[in-house]
């Protein structure tokens, strides 16, 4: 249960575990920061004197920049650590690295890692509140929150109203997508119907047992049957996956599962207000046609813009909970 203005959890490890109240609080807070980001002076003193450690063990541009900007707009001090590849390749374990950062006493820790579960490892040695910025194939909670915020904003709805009545279709490599996993938890929590579609090689076993979603291996059926789709969320296809034979060629994928101009036209024929989303970076011509990505229906840049406000909300609320925990001796 969320007490007034505070998250029910000390960390944001994933969407799993969040209550509807938590999600509403995060999105409500993000709305207020969207307003801050439109001011001429885009800075508030909410986290003055707080230290935010940005620990990126995996290559990232937009998420890292977005968190960094979020921290700065909240007036926090930042400590950036970037390292691609395994920590052990440098002769140091993940926990060794974390213990060193912990010695600098960060209040908040933002972590991105290519291994699922890395934030849980850090929780064992770090006392600050942890925000998961993407762990392996597991979760990317802030991406899901910014996706939901974008949908709410476009629907002119308040967070408390949720996304009831909306249908979102997620298309791509569901098996290896942390973005999909977080969205498959958050969107139904907010009342939306979710469909997922992809080649059979990209749909993990047990999907229906875990998530409240409809599953399709035919993207046209997913997009053009049943209730009209309000948003199509295309996932990035990681070309290196092709080497492991989970897909044929880029062309195969584009023809079978890409959001082509023709395919999107069929979506628009059923709902002319349908939106196009993508977490980025995009492979134009593979999972999405350039004309679709750049069309007026695309909210891809809006997602990026909203991301800063969402991450400000996450940092702010985690810091608030952390302070109360410290004061109450429960940090």
């Amino acid at each position, binding site marked *: 249960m969320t007490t007034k203005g505070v998250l029910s959890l000390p960390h944001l490890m994933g969407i*799993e575990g969040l209550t509807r109240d938590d999600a509403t609080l995060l999105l409500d807070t993000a709305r207020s920061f969207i307003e801050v980001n439109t001011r001429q002076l885009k800075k508030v003193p909410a986290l003055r004197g707080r230290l935010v450690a940005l620990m990126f063990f995996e290559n990232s541009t937009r998420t890292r920049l977005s968190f960094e900007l979020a921290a700065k707009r909240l007036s926090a001090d930042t400590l950036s650590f970037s390292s691609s590849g*395994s*920590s*052990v390749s440098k002769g140091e*374990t*993940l*926990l*060794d690295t974390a213990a060193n950062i912990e010695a600098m006493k960060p209040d908040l820790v933002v972590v991105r*890692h*290519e*291994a*699922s*579960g*890395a934030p*849980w*490892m850090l929780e064992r040695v770090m006392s600050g509140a942890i925000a998961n910025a993407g*762990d*392996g*194939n*597991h*979760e990317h909670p802030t991406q899901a929150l910014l996706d939901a915020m974008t949908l709410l904003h476009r629907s002119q709805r308040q967070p408390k109203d949720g996304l009831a009545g909306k249908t979102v279709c997620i298309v791509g490599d569901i098996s290896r997508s*942390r973005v999909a*996993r977080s969205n498959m938890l958050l969107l139904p929590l907010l009342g939306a119907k979710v469909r997922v579609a992809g080649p059979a090689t990209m749909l*993990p*076993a*047990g*999907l229906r*047992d*875990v998530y409240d979603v409809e599953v399709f291996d035919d993207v046209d059926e997913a997009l053009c049957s049943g209730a009209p789709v309000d948003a199509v969320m295309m996932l990035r296809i990681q070309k290196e996956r092709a080497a492991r034979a989970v897909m044929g060629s880029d062309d195969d994928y584009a023809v079978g599962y890409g959001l082509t101009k023709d395919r999107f036209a069929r979506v628009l024929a059923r709902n002319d207000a349908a939106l196009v989303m993508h977490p980025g970076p995009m492979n134009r011509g593979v999972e999405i046609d350039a004309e679709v990505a750049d069309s007026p229906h695309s909210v891809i840049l809006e997602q990026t813009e909203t991301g800063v406000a969402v991450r400000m909300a996450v940092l702010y609320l985690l810091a608030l909970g952390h302070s109360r925990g410290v004061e109450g001796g429960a940090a």
Partner: protein
Amino acid sequence: MTTATTKTSTATAVTPPAIGYCDLGASIRFPRAPDEESVKDLVRAARRGGVSTVVVDVSGQPPVDNARFQAACAALQGHDGVRVVPAVCPVQGGGLADVASVERPAAWATREAPGSSWLVPDEVRFVYKLPAPVDDAVLLRRVAETARARHALVVAPSVDGALAAGAVAVEGAVATRLGLPALPEAAEVLGIGRILTIAKLTGARFHVAGIFTAAGAALLASSGNDRVTGSVFASHLLLDETALLARRYDTRLLRRPPLPTSSSRLALIAAVKEGTLLVSSGHAHVPRRERDLEPVRATPGGTALASTARLLRPLLGDDVLARSFGVLPTRCLGDTTTPVRPPPVPPGLDAPSTDDDDLARCLQEFSR
């Protein structure tokens, strides 16, 4: 180990003393780093756990037929009360190893070295251990044919290597929820099917180690080939994949093969009670530097040899434990004469035997 001898008019009859538990599933690394387990540590753990026979793979890491391998074999002997059987790795890279060269020190260590006080009976003179699945049927056939000719027991992993590569969970709801690399249960059916087929073709003796699915256990039981036996690791009888949800990304729960589904675990327990599956420890010491890694990169661990019997006793009872972890594995090694009398084991989970007794500690935490 002491033996009683009786002089008769025609020969010297040796009456071997009763032995305790027999483990076909322990691993030790050669050459070892300073923080890795030594033979002395392994033997100490075996003694503490009432285990008097341990099969240990010594030729997986160093190249064959060199001084280190011979030294490793020699180091396995001379431990009073514990028989340490050096297992030979018959494959090197993608081909058959120079098997004769690795058999020589192994044979010497088990039969002739000072301190070795037991004989490998003719039926099983060597143990060949495959550290990883051999998916290449041609190579597996050559291993089996060689094993048959040399009176060797082949201890092989249960899974298809390609399907199992990198997996730390079984495909399904748990792996999907946690975003963990997973293998289908069919990987074991494929792996065991290949072994059964090659065993039938060649007449070789196989022991399939680390069976973790109901389908795999059923396939083995229905094969009707008594020259192929199978065992399940202690951890897979004690925990199932739901433990991964209860203690998220706890590297102590990483196992190779991964922890079974709930229904497979129950089927494995039933198979052990019916006597169609044996039990082994899966003992593998994992240094801290390999455990404190990212969850999907950490080295999978095993059940400490010292705790295996103690942890399994409440689940299986004394009689089943004695049969599945004593009599049947001893017979697998071709020893059909030595009486097996496993010692009593202390009950309870309150005191993990060693610092790296991860499974015992996890079970202790679960029971709170």
